């Protein structure tokens, strides 16, 4: 087990040392005193466990491929940005754009998420234990978002594919998003995913998918009509 104290290191030094430990086969690396700084634990491609004792700033644990990152605190904007695989577990609140463009793996937020959670998501699972903000799943393309609490306005706005499950109230659906019946298999899968994080409450989830009306233009421009 290795320990890195962020207090005496620049962000570049911290990330270089962290990558060095991960590449040399360290199983668990602990980061102390992150002090809500940006760009901590970015671009780690080796399987290992990274524990961050405290809050992190923007783009924390982004561009991951493999590791399991546990953060005890809050995160700023774009936690887990473009994650390919691995796990992120955040105990408190995440800022806006959590899990932006993530392609695989699992990202768990114990508290609330800010605006645009899972924006342009391309795979994997994003779980929010609390509430999520404005434009949850905006332009989502694949994957799964599970929100245990309430979701803010415009849920699933302009989503292409993928599924959003909301356990609480939905402030409003976004453009081209619709609710759909949830199957028993899906309920079991969602509750199992939550069970892995110790959440045993039996939420009644609402399922939101793309209505796919934005896939095609449903009205023609004046000039186009004359051509037809």
């Amino acid at each position, binding site marked *: 087990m290795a320990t890195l104290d962020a207090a005496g290191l620049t962000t570049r030094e911290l990330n270089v040392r962290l990558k060095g430990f991960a590449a040399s086969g360290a199983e668990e690396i602990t980061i102390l005193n992150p002090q809500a700084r940006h760009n901590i634990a970015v671009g780690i491609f080796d399987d290992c466990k990274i524990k961050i004792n405290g809050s992190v700033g923007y783009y924390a644990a982004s561009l991951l491929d493999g590791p399991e990152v546990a953060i005890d605190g809050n995160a700023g904007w774009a936690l887990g940005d473009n994650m390919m695989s691995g796990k992120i577990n955040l105990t408190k*609140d995440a800022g806006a754009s959590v899990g932006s463009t993530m392609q695989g793996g699992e990202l768990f937020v114990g508290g609330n998420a800010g605006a645009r959670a899972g924006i342009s998501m391309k795979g994997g699972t994003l779980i929010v234990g609390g509430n999520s903000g404005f434009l949850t799943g905006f332009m989502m393309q694949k994957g799964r978002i599970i929100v245990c609490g309430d979701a*803010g306005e415009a849920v699933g706005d302009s989503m292409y594919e993928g599924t959003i499950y909301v356990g609480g109230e939905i402030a409003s659906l976004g453009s081209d998003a619709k609710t759909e019946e949830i199957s028993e298999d899906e309920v079991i899968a969602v509750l199992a995913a939550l069970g892995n994080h110790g959440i045993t409450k039996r939420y009644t989830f609402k399922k939101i998918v793309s209505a796919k009306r934005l896939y095609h233009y449903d009205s023609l421009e004046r000039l186009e009509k004359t051509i037809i």
Partner: protein
Amino acid sequence: MCGVGGILYKKIGSTGKAPIGENLVKMLESMTHRGKDSSGFTIVGEEIDGDLVIRVWTTTADQAAHVLSRAQETVQKSGGVVVTHGIWGQFLRLTANYEGDIPALAEALLNTEGVALHSIGETSEVIKDTGTPADMDSIHSMSQLKGTHGIGHVRMATESLVDVNHAHPFWAYPFTDVTVVHNGQLTNYHKLKRIYEDQGHRFQTGNDSELIAVYLADKLANGETLDYALRSSLGDLDGTFTYLVSTKYGLGYAKDQWSAKPLVTMETDDIIAIASEEIALRGVFNQEIDRMEPQNSEVMTWLL
């Protein structure tokens, strides 16, 4: 991109001794990655020798003395007196016992050639300059200033000049003690500016953020509450914004309908602190904290 920050000590009373300057400098210095063009601060609740504190900038250092005499003349005409004054370089600060109306004083000062009026306050003053908060502090020593609350800004210019007068905070001319710091861009700036100019409001710069100060001043002058003024701004201002406002009585923020610009807030029994990023709050509170991220179209005010 810009960084905004604000702090209010809840238990300090209306005239305070809290280290507002020191804390705001720490907060904003830790966000210089959000902007290094210029910095600025409003410190509210200072103990002031006189009824008013006035902050002026002049285009040349020589002009400062001339502006001072013009100010003394105007104040004396009203039956008042300039109590203290200080000149360093192009900056002039004076306190006065003044009997006349504020617009007349502001007009008299602004109509002196080469003058920018940064603030007139009963309990607050605006200190702004180019450079980072730490650079500024070595010249202006605002970290020494004590009060009850205040706001600050670091600027990365997008829409207008980089100079001392286009730095935030913007004072809501000629409405004492109302100042604004803004992160974002207003897209209906020119349209609203024309409307307010037609109504007789005066703009000192070409910066879109100044419009917010004028907008709020207009609402408050018409007897609206700060909370109402902030709420109505959500619909009246187009573009992206998270802005903070400070008045004699408290602090507030408004966040646009897109939630485009960041803000986090934290509240303890004693202190309210708000900033673009948590890292700025950690500049003041060294321990792990619980903070809240406001959502879209959200407004909040705290009064002393």
